[in-house]
């Protein structure tokens, strides 16, 4: 067993290039270790690496923990952070770990899709920025090379004024999403709808977005059509947490509810 605590990013990158397993909060990795699914013998521990814990309106370091995002993050991401696990999990878990794991149910991911965020990947030979839809390629599959670390989430400097997150699960606390969703809306009506747990990667409901973006004050019938389009566009599966049918239904209901919250804030 070998564990190193790098003093700076260069040391961390050298360790990753040398094949060491990155460890941030451990809330995904240690579950696998405890289940005997993984047995990393050489670990680079990032918990105290300040170089990847920077935080600004346009850049959130990979090492930033949910506890901080809950208080300081952009509205919908903060709302998502507040639903992650429990206080214990939010004190340890990082956004970088969420992005690196790339679970279809990752609660931080729909926000990235909704605002077209990019993921910064860094190796010894430099950094590259991948847009979310280039980065997430499948269930727990990403475009990250094994010699790279996720170093930050990069956001545009003009995030939409209205943004809302919510998730559906079997209870309130400590629950993995059955469906999670972010809706954003700008002053001019431009709307984005991003969903998690309903496809191998986070996804956008583009047809629903297009339809609703030109509606300034949608009628009841338009809202119902919006929900129907979202339900139609998602591509969920049936698994131990839910059924395809329920997820489709819940996706439409959730997206409509969040859109209505955006509209109410617009009116207020």
């Amino acid at each position, binding site marked *: *067993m070998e564990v190193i605590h790098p003093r700076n990013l260069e040391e961390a990158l050298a360790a990753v290039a040398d094949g060491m397993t990155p460890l941030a909060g451990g809330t995904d*990795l*240690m*579950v696998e270790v*405890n289940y005997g699914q993984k047995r*990393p*013998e050489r*670990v680079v521990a990032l918990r105290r690496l300040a170089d990847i814990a920077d935080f600004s309106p346009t850049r959130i370091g990979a090492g930033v923990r949910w506890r901080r995002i809950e208080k300081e993050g952009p509205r919908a991401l903060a709302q998502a952070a507040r639903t992650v696990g*429990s*206080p214990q999990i939010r004190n340890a878990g990082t956004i970088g770990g969420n992005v690196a794991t790339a679970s279809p149910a990752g609660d931080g991911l729909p926000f990235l899709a909704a605002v077209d965020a990019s993921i910064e990947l860094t190796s010894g030979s430099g950094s590259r920025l991948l847009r979310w839809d280039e980065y997430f390629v499948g269930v727990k599959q990403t475009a990250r090379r094994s010699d790279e670390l996720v170093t930050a989430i990069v956001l545009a400097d003009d995030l939409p004024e209205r943004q809302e997150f919510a998730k559906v699960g079997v209870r309130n606390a400590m629950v993995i999403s059955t469906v999670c969703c972010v809706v954003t809306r700008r002053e001019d009506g431009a709307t984005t709808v991003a969903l998690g747990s309903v496809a191998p990667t986070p996804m956008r409901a583009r047809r629903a977005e297009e339809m609703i973006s030109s509606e300034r004050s949608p009628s009841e019938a338009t809202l119902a059509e919006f929900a129907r389009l979202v339900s139609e566009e998602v591509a969920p599966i049936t698994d131990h947490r839910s059924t395809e049918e329920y997820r489709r239904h819940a996706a439409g209901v959730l997206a409509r509810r969040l859109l209505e919250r955006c509209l109410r804030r617009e009116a207020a």
Partner: protein
Amino acid sequence: MIIGFRLNGQEVTARVDHPASLLDVLRDQLGAYGSKNACEQGECGSCSVLLDGELVCSCLVLAADAEGSEVTTVEGVAPEGELHPVQEAMNRVGAVQCGFCTPGFVVAAVDLFERNPHPTSREIKEALAGNICRCTGYGAIIRAFEELAGREVR
């Protein structure tokens, strides 16, 4: 490898030859049996400790990542022979059934009251959302902390 950290104010060392959790090391090598092992997946909170002052599940901390850190377990929340106000509150109300979850609740509540001496009932429930009581004795547990917070008890 040999790791060293401070456990309840004392320097300790342990030997880790595989990716053991901090919880394993506390119980198997350091005789700190207060932190309980129930799920090993972060779901129940019975292994709650403060790692560098932050409430975490010790079953999800790689032991070697505690190197050089300060770890506080239930054994260390009050001086030897004394009780923390959180423990006294649980005693007063009888907020213990089998007691398995109690150390985890104590550590989580110590963390809560350190940050917020007068939490609302809602804040108490949210702060304890990561702790499961398999005897389902939540009523008395919440009441104990409402009383400590100086709230009206229902």
